[in-house]
């Protein structure tokens, strides 16, 4: 995937905890990993934003070893469940977490990461094109993964490099988890051009983050809508960040006012603000709003990336040709992934989509062909950039609490859970917070007399909207 030798003398990674790693060093480690692992197989990689985590990922992809990327903070019970489901040959994890698996032997270590050889004796067949497995939902531990191919990653990375005009002088700073498709796409694309990634697990709300940003002169970062709300609260626009060139935004729709505010700030300060649109099912990116139109087209997610194509279809599957008509957004391009995997056997599956993705997002285009997301076909919300499936939340609650009547609904960043039994409300909330691993302030409990249903027992979600939509 990456030509590490080409940039051998460039710094690939600066880790805020100390290590500085060149592309040449990364190439050397990659060869060492291959000597240990020997042949194509499955590895579960527990990710954090650190040098070791990224080096392992690069070594696996470059050597045709298939990683499943998970958050290193995933609850241990959920992790073991996933390990048992997919039976990887190895686990790549932070050295201080290796103790949890003392029956497995450490076969390689570098930069505070360790490779453990597992004892599973099943070897699921891996399809030749399969490169990588990524989750679609934050940290619920769902066994459903998106299957991405080498061609998918290469195609999407090349498009990103082109539309963001990336080169070796870039120094992006990490603001998103690397096991999250958007965070990973930043790593993928910058390693392709020989740039230097500033790696930190610190958050925007920490002094150390901004010190690191300034010390090493970061040139760009990415953020989900919530990131931009935090930046606004931080009075970001008054900060002096002369090295910053580009801010990108994805992971949900930014409020048009906030979009405009950041677009104006960027325009007035010689920086680029680029709103983008994507999904893990399309590797990462599908659309982007060119910086020069950021103010004029606020609220739009832009146009299809190089090599991709958007169309809208109506209820009957017919293509929409008039502007300002709502339809389901369909994307076509080489970055449309192979499909999903829900169990080990699925890893042998080939391409199930044929380059076409029905996004599940409802959209319109304007007279200039710029696209606007106006709603969703499926019942899910984006919370702090993470996809949360509402039906899955309902199912988890009903599994845990016997005989409970509940329904969840809401808007992005605000999930409302309706229950009829007041005594269970706080327990349900505690349970959902733990299951999703998201901050409790996103969850609102509402106690109602009854959950509105039709004669067939189907929940009438429309009638719940009055609790969270303005008049």
């Amino acid at each position, binding site marked *: 995937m990456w030509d590490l030798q080409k940039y051998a003398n460039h710094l690939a990674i600066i880790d805020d905890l100390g290590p500085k790693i060149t592309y040449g060093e990364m190439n050397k480690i990659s060869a060492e990993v291959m000597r240990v692992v020997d042949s194509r197989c499955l590895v579960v990689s527990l990710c954090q934003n650190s040098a070791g985590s990224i080096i392992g990922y690069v070594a696996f992809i470059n050597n045709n070893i298939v990683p499943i990327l998970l958050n290193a903070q995933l609850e241990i019970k959920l992790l073991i469940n996933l390990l048992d489901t997919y039976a990887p040959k190895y686990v790549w994890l932070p050295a201080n977490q290796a103790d949890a698996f003392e029956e497995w032997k450490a076969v390689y270590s570098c930069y505070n990461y360790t490779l453990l050889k597992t004892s599973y004796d099943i070897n699921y067949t891996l399809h030749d094109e399969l490169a990588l497995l990524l989750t679609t939902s934050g940290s619920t531990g769902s066994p459903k993964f998106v299957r991405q191919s080498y061609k998918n990653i290469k195609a999407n990375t090349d498009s990103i490099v082109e539309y963001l005009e990336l080169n070796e002088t870039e120094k992006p700073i990490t603001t998103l988890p690397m096991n999250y498709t958007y965070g990973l796409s930043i790593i993928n694309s910058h390693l392709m051009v020989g740039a230097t990634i500033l790696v930190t697990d610190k958050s925007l709300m920490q002094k150390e983050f901004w010190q690191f940003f300034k010390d090493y002169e970061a040139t760009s970062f990415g953020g989900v809508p919530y990131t931009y709300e935090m930046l606004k609260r931080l009075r970001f626009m008054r900060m002096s960040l002369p090295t910053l060139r580009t801010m990108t935004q994805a992971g949900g729709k930014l409020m048009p006012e906030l979009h405009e505010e950041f677009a104006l700030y960027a325009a007035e300060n010689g920086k680029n603000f680029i709103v983008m649109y994507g999904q893990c099912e399309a590797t990462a990116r599908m659309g982007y709003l060119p910086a020069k139109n950021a103010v004029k087209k606020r609220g739009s997610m832009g146009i299809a990336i190089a090599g991709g194509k958007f169309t809208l279809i109506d209820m009957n599957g017919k293509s929409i040709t008039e502007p300002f008509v709502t339809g389901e957004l369909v994307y076509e391009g080489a970055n449309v992934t192979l499909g999903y995997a829900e169990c080990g056997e699925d890893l042998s599956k080939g391409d199930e989509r044929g380059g076409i993705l029905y996004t599940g997002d409802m959209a319109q285009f304007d007279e200039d062909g710029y696209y606007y997301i106006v709603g969703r076909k499926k019942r899910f919300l984006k919370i702090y950039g993470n996809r949360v499936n509402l039906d899955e939340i309902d199912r988890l609650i009903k599994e845990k609490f016997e005989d409970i009547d509940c329904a969840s609904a809401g808007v992005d960043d605000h999930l409302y859970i309706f229950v009829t039994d007041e005594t269970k409300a706080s327990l349900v909330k505690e349970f959902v917070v733990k299951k999703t691993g*998201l901050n*409790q302030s996103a969850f609102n409990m509402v106690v109602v007399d009854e959950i509105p249903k039709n004669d067939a027992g189907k929940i009438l979600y429309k009638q719940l909207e009055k609790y969270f939509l303005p008049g």
Partner: protein
Amino acid sequence: MTNLEMYKQAFCEAFEITEDKLAGLKYQEIPSWDSVGHMNLVANIEEAFDIMMDTEDIIDLNSFEKGQEILSSNYDIKF
């Protein structure tokens, strides 16, 4: 309500915790005090004391005690 009571309330409401957990509490020590929680905390404090905190102070506020120190030295709020 005294300043200390308002200050405590800002924490309890932002993180949904009880007062007995506040002494010595640090950023990222509990799941609810992550970056999202931090933003809620700052919003609560700004509203309670009718102030606008500076960036430096927002990112410096990394414990229950540190916040008190910042508010009294930079915003003239006495506890």
